[in-house]
């Protein structure tokens, strides 16, 4: 068959069903109720965004060194600028800050290396991060070796202390959490009940009472000649508290592994620790990573509580700076800065955890 007639030109879709107008119609203005909601939403947005932008950017003061440089009615970011070193390093001596910088650089490099899936040598980097890095950063931060002057822990503070508390609490909690989770699933009644009581105790009390306990009761529990540093006391409290939450995340991961896996390993004659270490935990840990990241986020936010027992983490040092008589009346700027810092860290971590969840959403989900 031969078609010798010419086809009619293809016409573009009507302008009401493609492009921006169609999108607006389907997503914002379909029906009277939706239109009202959209208008209310736009009004809320207007109420929130316009004053915020004016305060934070248009009417703000950015440059200067003293309070007198803040002459406009908007935000006074000069205050943050003037205090930035303190907010990041606490009262760390300024000539020693390079040491903290090295630790920061190593920390972020290691985290980045472990977080980006494409980079090689994950295992060696992880071993370095868990074994060599803590020792190295302790030597660098605390000093006392290799002619480095000692910096006592009460001078540590700011973002550095927040990251330190969160990381040490996390790394310390992971092994305890694994042991507790395995114990809770054990067949031995005494081991099981011990683990249940331990986990439920720490999960049942607020972190602040744990920190009070660590700072008030721990000195009573130890021989009087033993004097534990305040930072170490806070770390012990945080780690024990966190390990209980970690144990529950790990238990959840262990429960997701089909029973056949362990039975197959037992059929091959593997011992308990081989079954756990070679078969169950590697599979379970992979699935637990999002949960672990989520507990890390909550720990990261919870580290702010240490200011109540007198440590100067990021929030603590901001709060202290707000009480400075030369800079009174800038609490909004201080809190917005601290909130922004915390938000950046927590938001990127939660996005990473969502990404992992999608990536690991393979085999086991049925």
């Amino acid at each position, binding site marked *: 068959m031969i078609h010798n007639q010419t086809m009619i030109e293809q016409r573009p879709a009507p302008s009401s069903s493609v492009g921006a107008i169609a999108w607006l119609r389907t*997503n*914002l203005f*379909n029906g009277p109720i*939706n239109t009202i*909601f*959209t208008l209310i*939403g*736009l009004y*809320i*947005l207007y109420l929130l965004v316009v004053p915020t932008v004016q305060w934070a950017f248009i009417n703000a003061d950015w440059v200067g060194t003293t309070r007198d440089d803040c002459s406009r009615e908007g935000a006074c970011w000069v205050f943050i600028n003037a205090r930035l070193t303190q907010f990041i390093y606490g009262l760390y001596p300024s000539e020693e800050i390079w040491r903290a910088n090295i630790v920061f650089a190593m920390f972020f490099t290691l985290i980045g290396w472990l977080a980006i899936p494409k980079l090689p040598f994950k295992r060696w980097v992880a071993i370095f991060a868990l074994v060599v890095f803590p020792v190295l950063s302790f030597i660098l931060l605390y000093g006392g070796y290799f002619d480095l002057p000692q910096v006592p822990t009460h001078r540590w503070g700011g973002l550095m202390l927040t990251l330190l508390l969160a990381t040490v609490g996390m790394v310390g909690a992971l092994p305890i959490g694994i042991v507790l989770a395995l114990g809770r699933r054990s*067949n*031995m*009644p*005494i*081991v099981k009940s*011990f683990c249940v009581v331990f986990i*439920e*105790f720490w*999960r*049942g*009390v*607020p*972190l*602040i*009472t744990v920190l*009070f*306990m660590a700072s*008030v*009761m721990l*000195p*009573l*529990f*130890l*021989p*009087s000649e033993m004097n534990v540093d305040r930072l170490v006391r806070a770390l012990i409290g945080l780690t024990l508290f966190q390990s209980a939450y970690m144990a529950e995340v790990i238990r959840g991961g262990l429960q997701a592994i089909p029973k056949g896996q362990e039975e197959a390993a037992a059929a091959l004659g593997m011992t308990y620790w081989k079954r756990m270490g070679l078969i169950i935990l590697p599979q379970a840990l992979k699935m637990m990573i999002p949960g672990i990241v989520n507990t890390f*986020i909550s720990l990261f*936010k*919870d580290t*702010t*509580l240490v*200011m*109540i027992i007198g440590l100067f983490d990021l*929030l603590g040092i901001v*709060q202290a700076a*707000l009480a400075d008589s030369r800079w009174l009346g800038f*609490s*909004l700027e201080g*809190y917005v800065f*601290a*909130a922004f810092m*915390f*938000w950046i860290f*927590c*938001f990127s971590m*939660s996005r990473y955890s969502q990404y992992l969840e999608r990536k690991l959403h393979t085999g086991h989900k049925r």
Partner: protein
Amino acid sequence: MSVRPNARPVGQKPPFWRDRAKRALIFQCLLIAAVIAFLFYIVGNVQDNLSSRGITTGFGFLSNTAGFGIVQSLIDYSSQSTYGRTFFVGLLNTLLVGGLGVIAATLIGFIVGIARLSPNWLIAKLAAAYIETFRNIPLLLQIFFWYFAVLRALPSARESLAFGEAVFLNVRGLYLPEPLFESGFGLIPVTFVVAISASIALVIWAKRRQEATGQRIPAYWISFALIFGLPLLVMLVTGVPITWEMPELRGFNFRGGITVIPEFLALWFALSIYTASFIAEIVRSGIQAISHGQTEAAQALSLPRNLVLRLVVIPQALRVIIPPLTSQYLNLIKNSSLATAIGYPDLVSVFAGTTLNQTGQAIEVIAMTMAVYLTISLLVSMFMNWFNARVALVER
């Protein structure tokens, strides 16, 4: 098959470290021994430390006079009251902020969670922005923000923000009119109780009737009208036996009415807004967890839209929502202990703070405080287990 040279002769028992039951027994005995040794070590140290500091143990201090005032108490309290009474004042204040926080967080959380799923792009994005903002900022920072940056920046009593000559907001707090109940008021709570019992009876009867005849009556609407309408009717009939005491500016401060201290407001706002962002996510995931097939199947049975929601979607979504929701409630109550940072007189602030500092009875005070929170968590987890057992899917 060759016999290994070191194989055991038949009939001989394996050594005890190869016997799983014996190994478990030994391991558990070791664990108990370790725990007991640890406890002995701690108790010994505590006794040494306490005797060197001259502190006597025991709960006798609870009947001593406290000697400090508390800004907000739900029961009678003065500085002449005992430490035991400060404990109850603190506990009630914790429960007050916890209870009101749970209500507010649930309301905001459900609204935002449903808005997150709205087909309206702008509303969904606004809800998402709310969730992502408040979830990722530490609670303590939010409490400080509301307390120091918002409520502390309010005008003084003379320049209060007034809402209709009845509600005033200034740097010292929120002033509300206080209802004063007159003689005939006792009837209203009685009517309320009667209305509730009648509604329960009605719902049970309606259910039986539906099972027997298949006919439905709008029992929930009728009971709603009963519970709210009947007391209102009685109130109108008895001539509204309530007068309102208005707050009035006298000198530098307001007198009369109810005063809500700014510490309470800051804590309540921060707790509700923070927890609501988590509840919103729980609600969203709970609703999304119900597969679309359920809705379609219900529609195929020609159930009307409101019944599809009430009989099919919501009961299934609640099964997913309630367990994490209760743990959020628990978190909220535990987080209310952050009150101590801004001086709201909750349990941790007045008891584990002031009382502990004055008496030095660290062990007793911390143990009592922890016991309160542990009891609350145990009660909630008991409820959760009961609920889970009740709604668990019965699978084949």
